[in-house]
């Protein structure tokens, strides 16, 4: 587009503020411009994923330095960290549905736990002995129904999601305990006995993929993703649409390849004290699949677009003819569904279900992970990848503190995780204020 001579420049726009809010990939024509746009954005308070990457580096450096024998950086501990992180990541992606809609769901921990408990109960050979597929479906279905009921109450009766899901948290906690007490397990149904279906659930977290197969699978994923990014970016560049410069597409693909290589390398190191234990745990492809599916849902479908619109300006969405109640209700349903996946992995990690599941604590971890990753508590901003990045940070803290004899007690975990959540919320609020104080027009 060329500027017409009679078209006066918009003198009233605040150029600094406007630049700060412009995503650098939208305006940059070259890598240099991109770096300049990005740094001006950081100064303007819109820092994107940079703080979370910095936090990760800091966590790795600090805990490696202070953990006994630098055990934090050992392959065994890092794989352990990935497994713990998987639960936080998926729970944070679940919370992402509520947060993007401008709501909150405090019930995710125990609602997910209901689903996990149902699945673990159903596959018990001594009682129902279901096949693992229908057992998982039944568990996730229960979660989804619970979420849809909460969503219906919130949207149809216009109740605040905070209160409805707080009530849901208590109710779900009670139902969860009831489900646990079913059968002859005294409230501790576990996955450690004999039986193929038990084993499948247990191996969601503990099963490993053969190292060679891991490499091939990782290579296939990287090549497929790389081709997808490269082809779509270069097609957009050719047809004159807004697209990042070629060097940036290459850097993006390169980073995906490096992350995949690092993860597979770590997992393929023999981490057993005696014998051999190596390979990528199944949980990693599970997390990647959830991330991929939800990224497509959020970024590339009408449903996702409408969630962002509702979180940004619900009235605008309503006037655009969007069925706001339906989208929000479905959002709460999918939030609870995803929470079910997370807590199923948690059950697998624990090797069973018991009343020790910290459903309340996990909600806070989920919110913290999503917000640390870059999802806004104020609605309309956030992506599934933010849950993954934030989940890694939370797991890093959780795991690192466990390794320190002086700080491994649960009270320190609470305090430090609470402080991290607080820091994330402050960054979110301050960056939002910084962004809005500059632009004149923001309501």
């Amino acid at each position, binding site marked *: *587009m*060329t*500027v*017409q001579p009679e*078209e*006066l*420049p*918009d*003198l*009233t*726009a*605040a150029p600094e*503020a*406007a630049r*700060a*809010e*412009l*995503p650098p990939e*939208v*305006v940059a024509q070259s890598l240099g411009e991109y770096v300049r746009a990005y740094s001006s954005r950081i100064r303007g308070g819109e820092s994107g994923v940079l703080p979370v990457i910095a936090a990760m580096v800091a966590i790795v450096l600090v805990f490696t330095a202070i953990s006994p024998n630098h055990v934090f950086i050992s392959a065994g501990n890092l794989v352990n960290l990935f497994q713990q992180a998987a639960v936080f990541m998926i729970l944070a992606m679940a919370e992402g549905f509520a947060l993007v809609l401008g709501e909150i769901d405090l019930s995710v921990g125990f609602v997910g736990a209901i689903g996990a408990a149902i699945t673990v109960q159903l596959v018990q050979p001594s009682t129902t002995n279901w096949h693992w597929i229908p057992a998982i479906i039944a568990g996730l279905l229960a979660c989804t129904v619970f979420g849809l009921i909460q969503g219906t109450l919130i949207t149809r009766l216009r109740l605040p999601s905070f209160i409805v899901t707080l009530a849901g948290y208590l109710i779900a906690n009670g139902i969860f305990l009831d489900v646990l007490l079913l059968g002859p397990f005294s409230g501790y149904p576990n996955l450690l006995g004999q039986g193929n279906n038990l084993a499948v659930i247990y191996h969601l977290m503990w099963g490993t993929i053969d190292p060679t197969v891991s490499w091939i699978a990782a290579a296939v994923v990287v090549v497929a993703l790389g081709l997808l990014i490269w082809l779509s970016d270069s*097609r*957009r560049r050719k*047809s004159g*649409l*807004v697209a990042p410069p070629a060097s940036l597409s290459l850097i993006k693909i390169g980073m995906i390849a490096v992350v995949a290589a690092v993860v597979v390398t770590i997992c393929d190191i023999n981490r057993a004290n005696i014998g051999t234990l190596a390979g990528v745990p199944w949980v990693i492809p599970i997390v990647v699949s959830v991330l991929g599916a939800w990224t*497509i849902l959020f970024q*590339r*479908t*009408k449903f996702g*677009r409408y969630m*962002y*619109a509702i*979180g*940004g*300006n619900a*009235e*605008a*969405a309503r*006037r*655009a*003819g*969007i069925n706001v109640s339906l989208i929000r209700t479905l959002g709460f349903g999918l939030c609870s569904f995803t929470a079910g996946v997370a807590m199923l992995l948690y059950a697998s990690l624990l090797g069973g279900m018991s009343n020790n599941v910290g459903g309340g604590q996990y909600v806070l971890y989920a919110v913290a992970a999503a917000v640390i990753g870059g999802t806004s508590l104020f609605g*309309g*901003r956030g992506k599934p990848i933010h849950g993954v990045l934030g989940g890694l940070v939370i797991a890093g803290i959780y795991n690192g503190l466990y390794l320190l004899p002086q700080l491994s007690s649960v009270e320190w975990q609470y305090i430090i995780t609470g402080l991290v959540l607080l820091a994330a919320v402050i960054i979110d609020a301050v960056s939002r204020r910084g*962004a*809005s104080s500059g*632009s*004149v*027009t*923001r*309501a």
Partner: protein
Amino acid sequence: MQSDMAAVANAPATTEPLLKIRELDKHFGPVQALYHVDLDLPSGKVTALCGDNGAGKSVLTKCIAGIYQPDHGQVFWEGHPVHVRSARDASRLGIETVYQDLALADNLDIVQNMFLGRERVRLGLLDEDSMERAAAETLASLRVTTVRSIRQPVASLSGGQRQSVAVAKAVMWNSKLVIMDEPTAALGVVQTRQVLDLIKRLRDRGLAVMVISHNLTDIFEVADRIAVLYLGRLAVQDDASKFDLQTIVEYMTTGGTSRTGGPNTKAS
């Protein structure tokens, strides 16, 4: 320019106006908000709707836009009687309203806002490329050229640019009548200029435009026709050239004019 327009308007009406309202009544409980309102909105003309606070401007707008249902009276669209029962009905006919608060989602970019609720989909996924191309074409045809990138979030736009995006969103859907509620309120001088130019371009494309405004300077600048509401009644509607600042203020405050040779109180 102004006199040419007047000449066209004075010529015997061979074609029906795009939207014709006859004897429209609307009351809320005991309050008669609109009483026997007759209004014509012809294509290719900017009609300014003026009136003091409480004169019924918003109610009339909402009756046209399908938000309110009139109690009595008839609405003719291209000569045919119609009942606009919802905003959907209105946009199906080709009536789009740009409200004062613009109804844009700050967190979405320009393309996403322009297609909100009517996204193009290919194989179940959003067809971003085709939407971006269409949005760029519409903005270019309206000569909205000050935005740096149509992929920037609406939060980063100035007030005038936001207004332009809201208008572009409205005209994108083959609309024939665009209603704008206070389009220049809260805008600076340069931005007001941009928006008024944009309104003229809509007219030049043959759209009917109805502008609701308190700003008489803007009205005289952009309007071909002026209609004044006074306490729920249409006090006057005529070509803009028949009015001056004083008569229009008189109509707005008293419903009539003391001067002779003013515009007709009953429109042609």
